[in-house]
């Protein structure tokens, strides 16, 4: 089997290429957007393709001769939606049999109501643009599947962790700087999936006969509270968990700048933008940049201990009380996550140490 991996230089893409090549699972064609993105891909001598992932013609050339495509590319909200269409169209043009697209459990929101599963309707009216973009991308792909021949499997992982992930290193950085926080003492559920468990789901999705046209929530087998994640990371750093700020979840309101940025990411704005003169866009950026400028510090104050840096995404995630079920993936694809939470965290922390995070005073 020959598989094209779109987004092969990203976190999941990098590990997927490692898995497919080192496990001799399939011939791999890594697809990236720029030559610079080849730096990590090039550890292997592979027939990679550098192309514009928004352009179906360019992508179709990259997919030529491939039996399947895995779409694991990231982007801003506008790109996420546009890429979904271009990847499916290109797969169709190239005669690809199956497309496995990485969507996200975020289509259900970051704090889903109990009982949420794949049958729960999704909507694009969430507060975070990324979530709405993932919803729209799924809609584009499903519509394309209705009209096209390429089989489609949608995977909805939630918080993917492992070597090269971004979320847990950012928690580590906040733990070090003393700005990390826990809501409700960290009792909320972390819907995590270790990257190798996601790779397992991708490989099943590539081959499973019953998966065409389906979306699957996929996560670790273990139900884990945020407190356990923070405890693991704090322990690796030699930091006491009780030193982490305990906070009450605040209400978030979008600033003017964020509201403008949200609007710019919508399909309507994206269609209008090319007609707006470059100078006007530049001036808008200058004005928005000026709004963000912080006040100069007052010299007549004593240094204060670091305060919790509370962001909307982590606040929503930590309030989650529902563990997404794997039942559908288990039933239709035989999904059994091979790596436990403990082992996944051990490997993640080992990677952080390898990457130079200051975890050596354990």
């Amino acid at each position, binding site marked *: 089997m020959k598989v094209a991996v779109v987004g092969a230089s990203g976190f999941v893409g990098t590990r997927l290429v490692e898995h497919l090549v080192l*496990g001799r699972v399939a011939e791999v064609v890594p697809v990236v957007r720029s*030559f610079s993105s*080849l*730096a990590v891909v090039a*550890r*292997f001598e592979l027939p990679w393709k550098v192309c514009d992932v928004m352009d179906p013609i360019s992508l179709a050339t990259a997919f030529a001769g491939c039996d399947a495509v895995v779409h694991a590319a990231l982007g801003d909200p506008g790109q996420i939606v546009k890429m979904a269409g271009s990847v499916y169209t290109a797969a169709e043009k190239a005669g690809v049999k199956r497309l496995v697209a990485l969507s996200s459990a975020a289509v259900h929101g970051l704090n889903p109501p109990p009982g949420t599963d794949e049958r729960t309707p999704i909507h694009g009216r969430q507060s975070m643009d990324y979530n709405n973009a993932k919803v729209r991308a799924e809609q584009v792909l499903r519509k394309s599947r209705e009209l096209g021949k390429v089989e489609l499997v949608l995977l909805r992982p939630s918080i993917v962790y492992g*070597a090269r992930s971004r979320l847990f290193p950012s928690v580590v950085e906040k733990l070090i700087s003393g700005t990390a926080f826990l809501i409700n003492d960290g009792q909320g559920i972390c819907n995590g999936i270790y990257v190798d468990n996601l790779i397992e789901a991708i490989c099943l999705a590539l081959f499973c006969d019953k998966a065409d046209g389906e979306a699957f929530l996929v996560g670790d087998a273990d139900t884990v509270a945020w407190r356990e994640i923070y405890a693991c990371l704090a322990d690796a750093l030699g930091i006491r968990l009780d030193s982490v700020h305990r906070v009450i979840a605040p209400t978030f309101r979008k600033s003017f700048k964020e509201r403008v940025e949200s609007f710019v990411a919508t399909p309507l704005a994206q269609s209008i933008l090319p007609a707006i003169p470059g100078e006007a866009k530049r001036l808008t950026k200058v004005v928005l940049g000026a709004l963000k400028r912080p006040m100069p510090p007052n010299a007549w104050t004593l240094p204060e201990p670091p305060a919790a840096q509370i962001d909307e995404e982590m606040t929503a995630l930590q309030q989650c009380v529902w563990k997404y079920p794997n039942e559908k993936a288990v039933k239709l694809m035989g999904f059994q996550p091979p790596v436990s939470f403990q082992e996944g965290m051990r490997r993640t922390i080992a990677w952080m140490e*390898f990457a130079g995070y200051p975890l050596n005073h354990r």
Partner: protein
Amino acid sequence: MPVAIVGCGAISRFFYSEAFKALAGPERLRVTALVDPSRENLSHLAKDFPEARRFAAIEEADIGREHLVIVASPPKFHAAQSILALGKGAAVLCEKPMAASIEDAEAMALAARETKGILAIGLYRRFFQATEAIRALIQHQSLGRLQSFQIREGGPFGWQAASESFFRRSATPGGVLYDTGVHTLDLILWWLGEPVDLIYEDDAMGGLESNCRIELTYANQCKGEVRLSRDWKTDNRYTFFFEHGFARWTVNDANHLEVFMEGLPVSMRGELIHVSQKGERVIERGIACTNPQCFIEQVRNAAAAKRGLDSLKIPAAEGIRSLRLIERCYRNRQLLKMPWMTADQEIEARRLAVAV
């Protein structure tokens, strides 16, 4: 002095172009020829030097004894282009890495000797006052003997590569060690000389490494560890542990350094300034050069050497040293331990790494 720029890619556009604009007045350096097989590259650089003549190949350019030639093409072309320019009596400033192989580098050095020409190598970090100060700390043992050092350098690959030549084994002899590592190893050699022993590991599995680790041991028992990455963000710090303190340097910060001396309650991090002392009078002579100023200075040094006004700071013999050390590393290559791999993946990774 007329100047020919051979290779009009990113390094010429973002660095040499600015340097020659700065040197046009005070040093009377005029860019008269641009050489590159790509018309697009030529047009970009011609915007800065509209009077320069454009050529697709160095053989077509009217280079003579009076020229300073900047060789900033991909490394595999450095030897032929430098030797040709030296043969015409021109002075050459060749970008790092000096060449694609030791044999090529030696041929370049031989050509410079035979023609009695100037062949400078673009290892411009040696022009930083911060790296000069580290060298002085090590040599004069102001903080005692150097006991160990740690180097972490690199981050996600950000250079706007115009082709895949950076990443294909058929086009370039190495990955991050051969690219970023040339600067790093050049400084280490300049500061400490040759190591007696080394262990080298990288993550290439049939291709080119994006991460590597080197353990170096010196005759005086000093030990060092170097980690280079094109993969994830490192802290880009060099830390030197002496008997009586430590020094820390942030990569590419030409005129700042941090020094901690035993007995002090705090560490000192600050700007480097030139001073002189006359008895109890300290006279400030200005802030040390910034990174771009050091880049300009290396070009000025090559031009001044050509005019016989200054000695060449980084001649060919110095450029070859880091290439030799890199070759020694690759000869001793082992697979870097990647703790997220499964046992089976590690076996296959080792097989692919050895097969190269």
